[in-house]
């Protein structure tokens, strides 16, 4: 593919993510791959697009629904190129590895999903464990994936104890220092997060990105 056409198709990928249009994203990613553009270059473009939307959301220029729409559109592109990248055994550079889960007993995931989207938009690799995640499964995942930060969200007051259980369990296993634990969700307060000895608390999605940057050393503590 000629250079001019190549930038053209990549621009279309970028714009389609901004436009929240999964069909155009998929179509132009296919075009890019057919045109022999490196899947990693396409991934860069997808990341750049979602980062732009994330920044706009941070500034209040777009709504959360735009951000989630862009994330959905981006997913359509990722699904195409991820197998190709894995096949070539290439490593994707990210800001860090994060695991996210909703506390055991809690099925409310809108807030957690927003945080996952924002972290991915900021350039982190996020493993989303979903809802109602038992402590043992979280422990297994962060051990296996060597996650730098794990976040547990709780909307129901009755489920915040799961956050404490995770920290205690990591202590018993002697792996507490290997991972930073952050807690959040409507039922959680900063006082609670201190009391259970977590490494960080964020009151909303946008603040979480800053917190994760601090915990991973991407940004200096302010």
């Amino acid at each position, binding site marked *: 593919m000629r250079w001019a056409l190549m930038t053209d198709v990549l621009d279309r990928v970028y714009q389609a993510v901004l436009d929240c249009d999964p069909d155009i994203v998929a179509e132009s990613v296919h075009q890019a791959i057919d045109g022999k553009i490196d899947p990693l270059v396409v991934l860069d473009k997808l990341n750049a697009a979602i980062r732009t939307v994330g920044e706009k959301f941070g500034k209040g220029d777009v709504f959360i*629904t735009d951000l989630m729409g862009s994330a959905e559109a981006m997913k359509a592109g990722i699904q195409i190129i991820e197998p190709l990248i894995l096949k070539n055994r290439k490593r994707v550079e990210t800001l860090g590895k994060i695991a996210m889960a909703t506390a055991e007993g809690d099925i409310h995931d809108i807030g957690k999903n927003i945080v996952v989207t924002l972290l991915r938009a900021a350039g982190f690799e996020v493993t989303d464990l979903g809802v109602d995640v038992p402590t043992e499964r979280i422990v297994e995942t962060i051990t296996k994936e060597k996650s730098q930060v794990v976040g547990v969200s709780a909307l129901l007051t009755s489920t915040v104890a799961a956050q404490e259980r995770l920290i205690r369990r990591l202590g018993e296993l002697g792996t507490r220092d290997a991972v930073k634990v952050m807690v959040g969700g409507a039922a959680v307060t900063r006082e609670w997060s201190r009391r259970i000895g977590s490494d960080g608390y964020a009151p909303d999605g946008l603040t979480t990105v800053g917190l994760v940057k601090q915990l991973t050393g991407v940004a200096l503590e302010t």
Partner: protein
Amino acid sequence: MHIALGHEMLEILDRTQIERIHFSALEVLERTGVVIEQTDTLKSLKDVGVQVDLDRKLARFPPYVIQDYVRKAPPHFLQAGRSRKFDFVVRNGSVFARSLSGCSHVLDMETGQCREATKNDTADGARIIDALDNIHFCGGWIYPGDEHPSYRDVSLFKIFLENSEKHVCLQAYEGKNLEFMIEMAKAVQGGENELRRRPVLSIVLAPSSPLKLGKFMIDQIDLAGRYGVPGLFCSTPIAGATSPITLAGDLVIVHAENLAGIAISQILHPGAPAVYGPRPNTMDMRTGNAAWGSIEFGILSAASVQLGHFCGLPVDTYSLGTDSKTLDEQTAAEKSLNLLLPALAGANLLTGAGFIETIRTASFAQIVIDNEILGMVYRTLRGITVEDESLALELIDKVGPGGSYLAEKHTRKHALLEHFIPAIFDRNVRETWERKGSRDVAQAAKEKAADILSKHHPSELDKDVQRQLDAIMTRAKQTLHRT
């Protein structure tokens, strides 16, 4: 900028009550009559069948005269801005808002203290109104205390023309003063015919309650009618002092005075644009002070909307009224309720943004907050759209139990259309709010006002027009100056 009313959402009076008040007002106009302090006009009234007692200056209107002539008032007419983008049509079924007319003081932006207003404040106020989207035209908001009282109103109008491109509605002290304003309006719009087509000025016409129409009012009715300048007929009785303390009795006075004023305008100039403007304030019996934030003001305004519409007239109500001295909870509660009541009743013009303290004091921060409250009320008036697209059954089925609507196109498409997005009201979580400086809404509004003042500059007047305005002002000063 056209805001259409979905439908009238509130009826304070039922049909029987409306008719009873209407016919009571007609009875008052026939039995008690109205004093009109202008002999020529009394003679014109006599010619159309009004019973006139020249010695007592008393006019008794047979009901048919009121009904015949009020009917001649146009159901819709244009109020123009200096710039065409701010033109709008006044009619039943749409709603527009303006600042009030008549503050003598301001809350100083630097010190927060209340002080007498200056010409600078008048100009700054005009620029702020020009910048606020939910306020469609200007009232003569801030009267400059550093201008001589004989022509302060003329000076104010000139400053508004220089600092805003929106339509101006204000009070002139006397007919002579209004003549100079009309001169200015002609200069700005490009001549008498153009002024008639696109009146950049409308005029507040207030009787002296109860049931007296002063010479200054009659002179201005005549002048405004001659040039097609819309007249806002503002009966302003104080319940308990210049009208009965009972709400129904107060409405009879409001209705009688407004109908008498509008009938006179139509007798002198058939088809002259006229607005029905109730200002039913009440007396606080503990102090004897007039109250403009009382809840009765809101109830009476809502009822008056029904009375004006019953006669086929567009209605301007006083909204956003408060008697509080600061930007506090009293201000928020009184303003919101007194705006919402007449708005829900279907008022077409909502007057009153920008003041506290019973019309006396202007606040730049408050008008920014009022702009926000107006946005919420416009949203209320749009009601709920019930149709296939908004019921969203296909979407509900697609997302299914346990799914999320956040990333759906339908959500993006309707987020802005269906929901009011506040500009200054805060919805952050506490930690974020604290990080951003723990600002309350008064502080946020003050910063927004300061930002507007540093950035917003309406287009300047044509140099030749500016010279004409300066010359008219010089003549006005020479002619009107009284010591």
